[in-house]
């Protein structure tokens, strides 16, 4: 129960510009799929179309083989967790969780069992008689989850459900969510603009940009082999270093910086002399004393994180970010060496739309 197929789904609000351009992919039954992308890229629109809160402008959506795109939301057997939770403020926690069942004329006893079961799972029992306004943000979030769980739908949809929580709570709830999914095994589609959430939670990630689907794959595929420059930049923290580089007979050179590496595994066609080269900061090694083969760089800014230190350096005017483990004892202005030889290469065409390295 719960396989979702999007087939050339398309949405335009104004009939002219596309909020979502023909998107196709399959969410396997029981999978947790994340729609990841920056603000305005069409994530919510896609989710709303799956939910039936927006009409599709074109294409079809099927759930378990049945077309649903003309059905009203309540006929689609899914639950939705909103960013602002959308808890009914005038109902108690219990009533909030029971509402969907009541609307579906579930017998009273059944409702009670399922609500209490969901409440127990989320440790919400002490709050069942409270109104949402008497709960903390995290508790509200859990009620929103509970409302979805109590319904036991085939599909869960989440629209940035964690973004209203503070950092600590967000991490904790993320973990709970993952655990919950492991237990329930229901198909879930999850919208976020936070790459960390997407990586940690998902079976598969759909990275979107400006209404288009950039890449659809497992977290590891997305991180290790971003299909486009956009994906490379958007996924991974701190953000990847990107340079205009030249690919010449198997060697990659960043002009004017002295950075040059052998282009292992890079497929070159005639047109691809000018390329984009990406190097992840945590794969660069900073030597307080420059060593042989190091690129020489000047330290600009040091940001200690405790377990690691982000060092922004400039190499002949080009800025480069490296992440070194632990506290690094350098000072702005100091000259250091950066070893790029150990870094995996992410090479893209000059316009960033196609990956050249494997």
């Amino acid at each position, binding site marked *: 129960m719960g396989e979702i197929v999007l087939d050339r789904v398309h949405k335009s609000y104004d009939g002219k510009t596309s909020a979502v351009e023909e998107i196709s992919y399959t969410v396997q039954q029981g999978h947790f799929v994340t729609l990841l992308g920056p603000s305005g890229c069409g994530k919510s629109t896609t989710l709303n179309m799956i939910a039936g809160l927006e009409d599709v402008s074109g294409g079809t959506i099927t759930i378990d083989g049945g077309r649903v795109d003309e059905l009203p939301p309540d006929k689609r057997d899914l639950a939705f967790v909103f960013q602002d939770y959308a808890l009914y403020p*005038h109902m108690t926690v219990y009533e909030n969780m029971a509402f969907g069942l009541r*609307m579906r004329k579930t017998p009273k006893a059944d409702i009670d069992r399922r609500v209490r079961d969901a409440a127990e799972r989320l440790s919400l029992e002490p709050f069942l008689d409270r109104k949402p306004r008497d709960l903390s943000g995290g508790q509200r979030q859990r009620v929103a989850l509970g409302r979805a769980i109590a319904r036991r739908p085939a599909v869960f949809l989440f629209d940035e459900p964690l973004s209203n929580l503070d950092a600590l709570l967000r991490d904790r709830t993320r973990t709970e969510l993952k655990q919950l999914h492991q237990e329930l095994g229901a198909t879930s589609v999850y919208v976020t603009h936070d790459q960390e959430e997407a990586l940690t939670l998902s079976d598969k990630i759909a990275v979107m940009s400006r209404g288009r689907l950039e890449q659809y794959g497992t977290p590891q595929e997305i991180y290790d082999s971003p299909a486009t420059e956009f994906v490379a930049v958007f996924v991974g923290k701190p953000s990847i270093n990107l340079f205009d580089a030249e690919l010449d007979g198997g060697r990659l050179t960043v002009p004017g910086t002295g950075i040059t590496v052998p282009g292992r595994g890079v497929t070159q066609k005639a047109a691809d002399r000018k390329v984009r080269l990406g190097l992840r900061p945590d794969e660069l090694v900073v030597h307080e004393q420059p060593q042989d083969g190091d690129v020489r760089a000047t330290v600009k800014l040091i940001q200690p994180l405790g377990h690691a230190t982000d060092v922004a350096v400039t190499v002949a005017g080009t800025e480069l970010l490296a992440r070194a483990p632990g506290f690094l004892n350098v000072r702005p202005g100091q000259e250091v060496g950066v070893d790029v030889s150990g870094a995996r290469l992410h090479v893209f065409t000059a316009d960033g739309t196609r990956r050249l390295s494997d």
Partner: protein
Amino acid sequence: MPASTLTPPRRPRGLPRLGGGRAERGDRRFNLLLMAPAVLVVLALFAYPIGYAGWLSLHQWDDKISPVHPYVGVDNYHQLFSDPAYREALDRTVYFSVITVLAGVALAIGLAVLLTQQFRFRALARVLLLVPWAVPPVVNGIMWHLIFDGDTGIANTVLRGLGIIDTNKQWLSSPTSAMNVLIFAEMWKLLPFLTLLFIAALQGVPANLYRAASIDGAGAIRRFAFITLPSIRTTILFALIVQSMWSLKVFDTIYVLTGGSGGPAGGTTTINFFAYLTTFSNLDRGYGAAIAISIMALVLLIAVFWMLLFRAPSWFVARGTRRRTA
């Protein structure tokens, strides 16, 4: 005990009981200073007249009959219970108020729903809504008199044109129909304000609640019943209270619509108008004051009734401190 004697005296007399240093005390003093004039003006302008009215109501004070005004205790209030005219006026007031308050609030909610939908000239429509609100009550009376005149009124012309009646109806000649015309006229005037209230309230209902409810399986009707109505509950309460106050106090329209008589056959004499007639036409000021004070008590009683009905007296109280979050 010893602890409090050790702490330096932080609280000058007369200031609200709160902690704080010099600057904070200064702030409070400043704010009190700002409040003082308005509070004093309102107190002065209400306290004396209300006290005076109460005093009047304990006297026999009929200017036409006698220049002496003996103290009569609660006789005037006693008279209220035995006076059939007061009873009738009260009945009419109940009729008028129940309709204007309940139907008014219900219609206003409906209108607000109409006007919160998306349509092309929505802004214009909401502007037009203000027309009745801006019309002074006196003009309102004149206007409806022109419309419901039995001979020359446009109401008859239109209804004849539509084939609903074939001879002119004398709208203002029977007590009941005059009362209904009055209700119709008052509704016209009061609906816009109530509608505006509800428009704002409806706009304050988060759209996601409706979406959540539709996902939960609620259709349009149930969304209205389970989401819309409960969400605008406090506004409904406010509207009921405010409209009850206004309905009990209606005067100008009656005065103009009925040529100052509250007629025909007293058919539009509500208690407020009755108080007026007693005080200013019959010059029975003592009894008039008693009637007026009974109205005041009634208004407060009804406000309390609505609050209890909604089990939300705390809402009014809480409003003063609640702050809108951005």
